[in-house]
């Protein structure tokens, strides 16, 4: 009561200018979302990352903060994506014999997944009457965001929107994955993990580690890297077939 409003205002200006606030907001939102997800029995329909992102966007909208300001704090977390991607080599090394044994199925199903992903995305988007730019932006949706941005740019799509759509695809993949696996009766954790990596890149990889197991995580990481590499070669001629 005794605190006058201008002082609070100044305190806010001071706090929001330092990266500390938005770093803390990210951690707290993540903890809250994870707790809420556990309360709901760990449902894949409300992915903790999606809830975290929604909470943070809500906070930023309420406090009238732009994304650049938020990212100044959050970049410390974002930075760790690099070493985490490198660390995917560890589970891959642990399961190297299995990967080697399954090498031919791995390569073939990866190509099958990419062709399905690109043709269905371009086909459905064209049928729904999306603009040419949107269609080209949707084409690389299943690829990890830095690669997808590069592909979208080369094709004539919108790179920054491609990055956003990639993230939505990732969360849709995590929600649909368990349902689809039950429908097509696939139980092998290596197949489940690999599929999640092909369709939902890093989100699918994180999901595989946390909800299926270490084998699935290793195969998902492999699939994510492989899909990124192969899509860069397969996608342009495929999109060309649609006359784009």
């Amino acid at each position, binding site marked *: 009561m005794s605190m006058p409003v201008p002082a609070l205002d100044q305190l806010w200006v001071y706090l929001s200018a330092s990266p500390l606030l938005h770093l803390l907001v*990210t*951690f707290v*939102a993540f903890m809250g979302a994870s707790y809420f997800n556990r309360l709901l029995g760990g449902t*894949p329909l409300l992915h903790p990352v999606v809830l*975290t992102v929604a909470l*943070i*966007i809500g906070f930023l*909208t309420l406090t009238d903060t732009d994304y650049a300001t938020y990212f100044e704090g*959050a*970049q410390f*977390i*974002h930075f760790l994506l*690099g*070493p*985490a*991607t*490198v660390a995917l*080599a*560890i589970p*891959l*090394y*642990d399961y*190297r014999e*299995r990967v080697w044994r399954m090498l031919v199925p791995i390569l*073939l199903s990866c190509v099958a*997944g990419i062709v*399905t*992903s690109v043709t*269905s*995305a371009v086909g*459905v988007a064209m049928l729904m009457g*999306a603009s040419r730019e*949107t269609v080209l932006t*949707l084409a690389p949706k*299943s690829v*990890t965001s830095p690669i997808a941005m590069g592909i979208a740019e080369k094709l004539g799509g919108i790179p*920054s*929107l491609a990055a*956003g759509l990639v*993230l939505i695809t990732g969360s849709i*993949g995590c929600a649909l994955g368990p349902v*689809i*696996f*039950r*429908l*097509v009766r*696939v139980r092998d*954790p*290596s*197949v489940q993990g690999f599929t999640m990596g*092909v369709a*939902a890149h*890093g989100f699918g990889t994180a999901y595989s*580690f*946390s*909800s299926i*197991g*270490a084998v699935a995580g290793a195969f998902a990481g492999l699939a994510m*890297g492989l899909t*990124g590499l192969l899509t860069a070669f397969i996608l342009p001629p495929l999109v060309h077939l649609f006359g784009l």
Partner: protein
Amino acid sequence: MPLIVGMSVLLGCQFLGQILVHELQLHVPGPVVGMVVLLIGLMINGRVPEGLRTSGEGLLRYLTLLFVPAGVGIMVHFDLIKADFWPITVTLVVSTALTLAVTAKVMSWLTRSMPRDPHDEWREERP
């Protein structure tokens, strides 16, 4: 100290990856090449050093958190998404479902004759 050694190995591989991408003009992100570099290193070394495992698995355990800052970036594109909302939504859901189904089906068909690993965690998804 082992944690610091582990983190240095990860960052070192990423660094090498960035250099390779830049020098060879590859269209792949540096960390992905860094992953290949580390994998080759582990194969030569023949085992995963303790510190590297601790820091690597620590990072992977919180992999989902690391996507949050980029995910919040979607707020910048709300207008673009609104303009093509239905085509984008239907495309993402249909295409992702098809990709999951086809990939899973093709791979389990191709591996149908392979021996199953008895150590697999056959954990069913939670209801």
